[in-house]
């Protein structure tokens, strides 16, 4: 899952530790999230969206997802 967390975090001027503290998770969690190696559970995804004041889909984009509607 690709995401824009690193850009948004640095845009706020926050360190990874600061964001981790806000979210109530470990700093390693933020590192793994930003690297795209850890997909958050829904509660954490919603908190991220609230912290950055945007919809979840603006934060996360699934890889290789091409819906045929």
């Amino acid at each position, binding site marked *: 899952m690709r995401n824009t967390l690193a850009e948004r975090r640095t845009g706020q001027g926050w360190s990874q530790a600061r964001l*981790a503290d806000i*979210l*109530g*998770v*470990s700093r*390693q*969690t933020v*590192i*793994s*999230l930003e*690297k795209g*190696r*850890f997909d*958050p*559970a829904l*509660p*954490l995804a919603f908190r991220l969206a609230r912290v950055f004041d945007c919809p979840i889909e603006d934060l996360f984009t699934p890889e290789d997802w091409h819906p045929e509607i």
Partner: protein
Amino acid sequence: MNSSTTRSTWGATKAGRRGPALWAPAVAIGVLTAGVVGGLTYVFSPSQTPALLALVTAVTTLPVAVALGWAILVAPSSITGAVERPEESVESRWLERASVAALMDGFAMIGLSAGAIVITEVEVAADVVLMALWVLLSVDLGVRYLVLRRTA
């Protein structure tokens, strides 16, 4: 964590309360658990001296049981640097994945060991087999967790 509490090496404390007091409930759980284990040993032991065996078992169980009480009551939410939502952290995911993989390894180990023992007709004491299995699964779980952490 409640804002009215402060973090210390010993756990969450209310203002003015000394940290080591937090050990009291952990020790209580430890004593209770060790007592139960000792009691079960006394009841079910075929030993000629069940009271002595129960006492030794309870005493040797006590440190682990106190650690268990501390882990249940104090550690999850209050030690220095603990996160508020460990269940949503990546470390929790690593542990979950390592545990599932170790469980699968355990099934394979038990099956292969049972098959080997049946085929070779080797007589092995049950306590040796169980202890070996416990050690192998513990090491398996630990190594898998470390690998996941290293590759994160």
